[in-house]
């Protein structure tokens, strides 16, 4: 647990500090193309002779920014829709379930790929494509929780006492869902980091020259035979971050005894 927190803090620190470290992720050294580590670049150089470590740290910032932005939007939308659906029921709930079923009919990141494809590449479109597809998980979870909570005594008491709907939803129901939502959120962030990298890997996400782990892996795979250090460093970084976030999720799930 301490280990994964340390890794997580390292990447968050890297993401926050990277603009102030005086890194030059876009500086090209033509004589150093795909060269191994040296004093100036501790992890070596990429296919354009750019410092891999500098790009890795900047890329961490991009990855985490995308993951957090999407999470904030998806969580807000998903929780709102799920709360209303689960609490009010009726035709609105049935419609919500149908819409969720349609979105869930597209496995994994397929829908995000489709949206990113038609919207065109770029950071904003990438975030948009991931937002469109990741609210469903939160909505489904919130709806299920709201359904099981709306018959509870304290909710009925609040209704009888004349509390407003907003107050019941936000003060009496939402806090009870916090634990499962936070666990879902942790795993959600890990899968968003992978999704962002996948889309960038497929050329649908962040575009050159901006550093991003997915795009770096795409270039790295191309030069796999000549410079394995390129793929290995980027892949290990991505893996360490995802692993750390997942372990944090597991820890929280056990801590709060949330059923998956």
């Amino acid at each position, binding site marked *: 647990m301490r280990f994964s927190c340390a890794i997580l803090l390292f990447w968050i620190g890297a993401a926050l500090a990277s603009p102030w470290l005086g890194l030059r992720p876009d500086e090209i050294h033509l004589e150093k193309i795909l060269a191994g580590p040296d004093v100036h670049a501790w992890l070596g150089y990429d296919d354009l002779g750019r410092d891999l470590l500098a790009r890795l740290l900047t890329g961490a910032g991009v990855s985490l920014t995308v993951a957090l932005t999407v999470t904030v939007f998806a969580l807000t939308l998903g929780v709102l829709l799920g709360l209303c659906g689960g609490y009010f029921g009726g035709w609105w709930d049935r419609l919500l379930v*149908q*819409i969720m*079923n*349609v979105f869930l*009919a*597209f*496995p*994994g*990141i*397929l*829908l995000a*790929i*489709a*949206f990113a*494809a*038609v*919207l*065109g590449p770029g950071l904003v479109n990438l975030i948009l494509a991931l937002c469109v597809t990741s609210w469903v998980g939160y909505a489904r979870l919130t709806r299920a929780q709201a359904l099981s909570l709306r018959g509870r005594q304290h909710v009925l008491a609040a209704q009888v006492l004349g509390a407003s709907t907003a107050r019941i939803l936000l003060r009496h129901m939402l806090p009870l869902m916090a634990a499962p939502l936070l666990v879902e959120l942790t795993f959600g962030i*890990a899968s968003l980091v*992978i999704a962002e*990298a*996948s889309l960038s*890997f*497929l*050329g*649908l996400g962040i575009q050159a020259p901006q550093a991003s782990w*997915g795009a770096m*892996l*795409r270039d*790295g*795979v191309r030069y*796999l*035979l000549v410079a*394995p250090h390129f*793929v*290995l460093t*980027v*892949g290990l970084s*991505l*893996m360490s971050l*995802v*692993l750390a976030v*997942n*372990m944090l999720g*597991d820890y929280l799930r056990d801590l709060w005894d949330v059923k998956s």
Partner: protein
Amino acid sequence: MTRLFAIIPTVFGVLLLTFMLVHLIPGDPVEVMLGESATAADRIQLRAGLGLDHPLPQQFFDYLEKLSHGDFGISVHGHAPISGLLAERFPATLCLAWLSLSLAVMLGLPLGIVAALNHDHWLDRLTTSLSLTLSAMPHFWLGPLLMLVFALWLGWLPVSGMESAHAIVLPALTLASGLTAILTRMTRSSLLEVLNEDFVRTARAKGLPERTVILRHALRAALLPVITVLGLQLGSLLAGAVVTETVFGWEGIGRLLVESIDKRDYPVTQACVLVIALTYVLVNLVTDLLYSRIDPRIRFSE
């Protein structure tokens, strides 16, 4: 039967959403697909060919009508019928997905069982950390890693392509990784839960050999939730195939999807997305039906 009817709105929604994809393109889809250098005649022809000059509801109706004949339209680049492209590419993906599924079951179930039977033993910790690591390895990272080790350093298998029969091993292993991890974890936790049940204690108390207790009594009950996961995850195999096929140059539907996006051949993109989603819906339906056949609690209550 009710389950069959329940998926009708979902399938309709999937069709509507895939139909809308082309209309979500910012700007003029024809302009985006053909690029700047296209002649006016080409543009008019494509616009008419895609039916974009009709009102939206009619376009959707035409889309559905064509699909009901198995007509997915014509690709913008290459002018080939898309149904032909799909028929050419889809078997390769199914083959890959099927092999991955079998690999994942063959690896994941025994690993999960071993972990559960050796609860809190080092074997348990080893398999658990292995499955954690595997689930944190996206296909575009595990794939190159396997390539490096088995194709370059050891030289056992081809790097990529589809020429030899061995070429399927690395992509299948890559694709199977995530599912193996999930199956291991699911089997482990499900079996651990079942091992505490009364009927397992009864089986032990009446003197059955441990083998029979585990294999005939505990495992049967433990595998039920695993089957649901398996069905849900077969879809993620199809989605994962998009990346894996790109890494290994496997000429399946995922590769076709990425190629079509690169060429801005949106009718092909649309068709690939639709086929993958419908396959997923179908697989889930089959799992659902299968589940209610297998689980005696559901079978007898109906």
